[in-house]
């Protein structure tokens, strides 16, 4: 014991790091400083007290997961995460008029229309109702980038994240205001600069819709709807209107811009456009190995996420030979409804170039299609709700690249 401690160059150097010592001693960065010496670090960190407790935790200085922002969205770094719950600060964002700064003390939700009692609720009122929590994914329906081979999982489909949401069932609130039994739709409206509006069938209000105010137990992030938002489990993210300021109960849809011009799917006949396509179909992606990794021959674990807006994932299959053969991946319990589930499969890479694919099946018997099958069903002008099987190619050097060729028009 004493010997190994003495062999360290730091000695009793107080605040200086080993690297600083080496630079100081030789006038240049020694190569030893960058070459890990086995066991050394495990001793170094014992040589001086670490930082004390603080108010707000921070990630290790060596870990830097980041969303990838564009002008309209920021994408969850799927390749950096190992579980199913997305840290709130890495939850994807998509907004149409920026993120509003809302003072929770002055926040109000108005519910009116075909109700017995038009009512204004404060945030405190909403929090007073019986609370319920639920874990589910939230996915933007525009969640596919076809890209180039140099595309990260985050860029392929990082507009999906998962949260334990807490709030009140919308049915409880609808009963509170006395929603008419003749009501068929309600309008949900946000208080952002886009004054986002979507028409939602009343059946969802009495199924599993919620008004939520907590994200992984904490207050909502501003980008995810602080202080309160609608949550429609399994449905396209845009319909779960954030910064909810108003609900109007009605007997018909309102035909807002976001349910006509946007979030609709022109079909193959060149004429028909599919509307109110809320549910997100089953999907999966391998998040590891993925670009930009370079892997070695030998054993690896293929890991990824699968989810379905229609219920539970019942099966994920992976192929390690470009889709010729498929093996069943293991699902990590608990396998929740309308939730991301982890899948894993062992794989021994021999060193010859190949391609890895995954496909998910849900409890309705729906299996994630190939790009060709999806295009044949929807035609070439379909824009949203695309969930094709994606792949990663493994080159001779072990370089992993996105299988962009599979998604060519």
């Amino acid at each position, binding site marked *: 014991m004493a010997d190994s401690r003495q062999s360290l160059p730091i000695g009793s150097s107080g605040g200086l790091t080993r690297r600083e010592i080496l630079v100081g001693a030789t006038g240049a960065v020694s190569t030893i400083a960058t070459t890990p010496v086995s066991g050394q670090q495990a001793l170094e960190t014992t040589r001086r007290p670490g930082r004390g407790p603080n108010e707000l935790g921070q990630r290790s200085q060596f870990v830097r997961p980041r969303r990838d922002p564009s002008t309209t969205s920021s994408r969850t770094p799927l390749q950096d995460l190992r579980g199913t719950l997305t840290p709130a600060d890495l939850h994807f964002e998509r907004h149409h008029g920026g993120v509003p700064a809302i003072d929770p003390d002055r926040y109000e939700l108005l519910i009116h229309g075909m109700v017995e009692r038009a009512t204004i609720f404060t945030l405190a009122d909403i929090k007073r109702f019986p609370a319920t929590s639920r874990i589910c994914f939230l996915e933007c329906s525009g969640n596919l980038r076809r890209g180039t081979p140099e595309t990260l999982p985050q860029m392929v489909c990082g507009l999906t994240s998962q949260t334990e949401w807490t709030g009140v069932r919308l049915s409880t609130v609808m009963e509170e205001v006395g929603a008419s039994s003749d009501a068929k739709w309600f309008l949900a409206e946000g208080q952002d600069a886009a004054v986002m509006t979507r028409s939602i069938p009343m059946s969802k209000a009495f199924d599993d819709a919620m008004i939520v105010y907590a994200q992984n137990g904490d207050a909502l992030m501003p980008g995810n709807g602080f202080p309160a938002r609608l949550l429609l489990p399994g449905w396209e993210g845009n319909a779960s209107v954030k910064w909810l300021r108003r609900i*109007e109960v009605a007997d018909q849809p309102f035909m807002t811009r976001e349910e006509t011009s946007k979030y609709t799917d022109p079909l193959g006949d060149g004429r028909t456009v599919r509307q109110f396509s809320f549910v997100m179909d089953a999907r999966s992606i391998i998040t590891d190995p993925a670009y930009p990794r370079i892997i070695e021959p030998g054993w690896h674990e293929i890991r990824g996420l699968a989810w379905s807006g229609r219920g539970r994932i019942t099966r994920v299959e992976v192929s390690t030979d470009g889709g010729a053969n498929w093996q069943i991946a293991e699902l990590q319990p608990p396998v929740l409804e309308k939730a991301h589930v982890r899948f894993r499969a062992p794989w021994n890479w021999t060193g010859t170039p190949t391609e890895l694919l995954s496909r998910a099946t849900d409890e309705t*018997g729906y299996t994630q299609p190939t790009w060709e099958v999806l295009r044949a069903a929807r035609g070439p002008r379909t824009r949203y709700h695309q969930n094709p099987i994606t792949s990663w190619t493994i080159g001779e050097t072990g370089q992993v690249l996105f299988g962009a060729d599979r998604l060519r028009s």
Partner: protein
Amino acid sequence: MTVIWRRLVVLQIPILGFSLVIGFLQSNLESAEQNFVQPPDRFGFGRPAMITDIEKLDIDVTPAGTGLPPGNGTAQTGTATWNRVCGSCHGPNGEGGTAAPVVGLEPQTGPPTVGNFWPYATTLYDYINRAMPRNAPGSLTADEVYGLVAWILARNEIIEDNAVMDARTLPQVTMPSSNRFVPDDRTGGPEIR
């Protein structure tokens, strides 16, 4: 103590403990049943919304024209507003700039626009009034919005340049794509739709 006796003691203790736990649970359950409070039909939370509260926020416009305010405009009155407020992003003729085009008639090749994709003219009033111009939403008067709606409809050859758009006429405009939209027919199951 014989070995057998010792075993019995060892067994006895957990059994005794188990029955104690069961008894405790049972009595607890019984009292919980008696004390279980049924949630009310109504909690009485929130305060009644007055007509004025509702009017302040209720800006939506439906295909039937509900919510359209008094006022009017034509493509001619809209031209000046378009040039002043909108053209910088959507292009002087509405055919696209840094923001998407709002004028375009060709449905098969061009991008989706008001002319070749939007099913309802009323949505145009609703959306421009709530969200445009992007850098100053909510800054337009009703007359200005009617004028811009008329301008966009006229550039898309849906109405005449001198047609007056107001709460009565706008819901009557038939859009080229008015009967293209169908409800979602995906239901899960093996079929890919």
